[in-house]
C-alpha cells in the first residue's frame, strides 16, 4: 500500500512540471480600501488585486483570491490554506521570523494619526486619549509599546470598524497607514483630519509567503522587479492612491 501511494506521489511529482501554469492561492482581507476591498459585484478588488493579477500574469501563474480575516492571515497561510497573502501587510522583522516577504511593492509608508477637527489633545505627546488600532497591525504593536501608558488602546478586528468608531466618537484618534488614511481624509470632507506627527514604522508593503516556498518567492520577485521597471506598479499606485508616487520609475 505504502509503495503504491509512493509511486502515485512520484508520478504526481514528476508530472507537476508538465503544467506550465501553477495554481497559486492568494489571501486578502477585503476590508481595507483602496488596498483591497469587496466591490459592488461582491468580488475582491483594489490596488493589490490589480497588482496581484499583473504579477501572476507576468510570472505565468494562475491565481485565485481567497478571503481571510486579518487576524488569522499568517497562521492560515502557515497551515497551507493558501500560498501567499497580499493584504497591505508591512514587512517587519517580527513577521519575517515566521514568514517571508517578496520585495516591497509599496514603499515604506509613514503611519499617521487622524482625529475629528477640534480634538483637544497634544498629539505630539498623547495623554488620556482613546487610540483606535486594528489588532495585529504594526500600529497596534507600536501603540502597545509606546502609547499604552496614560492612554487607552482600543483594538478592532477590521480597519472599517476602527473608522466607524472614530466617526461615532467612541475613540479619539486612529493610528493607521498613511496611504490607507489619505483617501478617506480627502473624501470625508473635513469630518476627520490628520493630526500630530507621522510615525515611521514598517519596511514597505510586500506579499507574504511561507519560508519554504523559495521558488515561488524568486518568481514573484522577478515579476515585481519587471513590473516596477515597466511602470505598471507606479501606474496602479497612481490609479488607486491619488497623488502618491511614482516611486519606482523616474
Amino acid at each position, binding site marked *: 500500500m505504502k509503495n503504491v501511494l509512493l509511486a502515485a506521489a512520484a508520478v504526481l511529482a514528476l508530472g507537476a512540471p508538465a503544467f506550465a501554469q501553477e495554481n497559486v492561492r492568494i489571501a486578502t482581507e477585503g476590508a481595507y480600501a483602496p488596498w483591497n476591498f469587496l466591490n459592488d459585484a461582491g468580488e475582491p478588488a483594489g490596488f493589490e488585486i490589480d497588482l496581484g493579477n499583473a504579477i501572476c500574469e507576468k510570472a505565468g501563474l494562475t491565481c485565485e483570491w481567497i478571503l481571510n480575516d486579518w487576524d488569522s492571515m*499568517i497562521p492560515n497561510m502557515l497551515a497551507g490554506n493558501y500560498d501567499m497573502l497580499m493584504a497591505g501587510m508591512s514587512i517587519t522583522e517580527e513577521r519575517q521570523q515566521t514568514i517571508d516577504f517578496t520585495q516591497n511593492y509599496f514603499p515604506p509608508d509613514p503611519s499617521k494619526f487622524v482625529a475629528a477637527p477640534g480634538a483637544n489633545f497634544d498629539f505630539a505627546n498623547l495623554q488620556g486619549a482613546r487610540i483606535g488600532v486594528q489588532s495585529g497591525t504594526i500600529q497596534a504593536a507600536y501603540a502597545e509599546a509606546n502609547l499604552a501608558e496614560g492612554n*487607552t*488602546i*482600543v*483594538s478592532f478586528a477590521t480597519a472599517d470598524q476602527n473608522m466607524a*468608531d472614530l466617526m*461615532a466618537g*467612541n475613540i479619539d484618534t486612529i493610528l493607521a497607514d498613511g496611504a490607507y488614511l489619505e483617501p478617506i481624509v480627502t473624501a470625508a470632507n473635513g469630518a476627520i483630519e490628520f493630526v500630530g506627527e507621522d510615525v515611521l514604522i514598517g519596511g514597505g508593503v510586500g506579499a507574504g509567503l511561507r519560508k519554504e516556498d523559495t521558488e515561488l518567492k524568486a518568481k514573484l520577485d522577478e515579476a515585481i522587479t519587471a513590473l516596477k521597471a515597466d511602470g505598471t506598479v507606479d501606474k496602479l499606485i497612481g490609479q488607486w492612491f491619488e497623488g502618491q508616487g511614482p516611486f519606482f520609475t523616474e
Partner: protein
Amino acid sequence: MQAFFDDLALMAPAVMFNISFAAASIPLGFVLAVFLALGKASSNPIINRLSRGYIYAFRGSPLFIQFFMFYSLALSLNVTVWKPMGWSGFVLHPLFMGPFVLVLNTAAYTAEIFYGALRAVPRGAIEAARAYGMSRSQQFRRVIWPNLIRLAWPAYTNEVVFLFHATAIVYFALPVIGGQRELMSTAQNLFETDYNAFLHFPVAALYFLAVSLVIFFIFGLIYQRLMRHLPSPPRLRYIPKWLR
C-alpha cells in the same frame, strides 16, 4: 510540560473576565427573568404580548448576532445620546456591553424556565393559599415562589453554565480594550502567535470545564438546601434533563 504551566498561568487572569461577565449578568438576568416570566403569565394583553415577544426574539436568535447588533446600534447612538449624557466611553466599553447583552439574552432563557416552572406549581397549593385569605403578594412570596424556584433550579443551573460558556464569544464580537481578553480570545491569540492548537485550546477547555464543575457544585449545594424539607433531598445531576 513547561509550556502547559505557562499557558495555565497566562490564562488565569483571562478566566477572571469570563467569571466577572457571568457574575455580573447572572443576578441581573435572574431579576429581569422573574418579571418576564410573570409578564408572560400575566392576563394583561399588552404585558403578556411584550414579554412573550421579548422571550421569543432573544431565544430565537444567536447571541453572536445580538452582540454585533447591540454594539453597532449603541455606536450609532453615540453622538446623539451617549455623548451628551457623558456616558460614551462607558456604554461602548466591552466590560459594560458584554454583560449588558448577556443579561438581555440570559433573561429570556431564564424567563422561559421560570414560566415553565410557574405553570407547574400545583394548583391545589395556590387554591389553599387563597382559601387561607392570603393576598396576591403573599401568595406569590409564600407559596408560588418557593415552589417555582425548586422546580426551576435544575434547569436554571444548566442555564447558568450555558451563560458562562457564552462569555467565550464576547471578544469575537466586541473591540478589545488594552489587554483585556477573556479565555477564548486569549487562547485564539496565543494560537495565532505559535500555531499550537493542541496546547492552547485544551488548556482553555480545562478552565471552562473546571469552572463549569464549580458552578454545578455550588448550585447543587443550593439545591440541596432548597430541598432540605424532603426526607432524602434529590441531588442535582451533572447533566440535567432540560435543555437550554
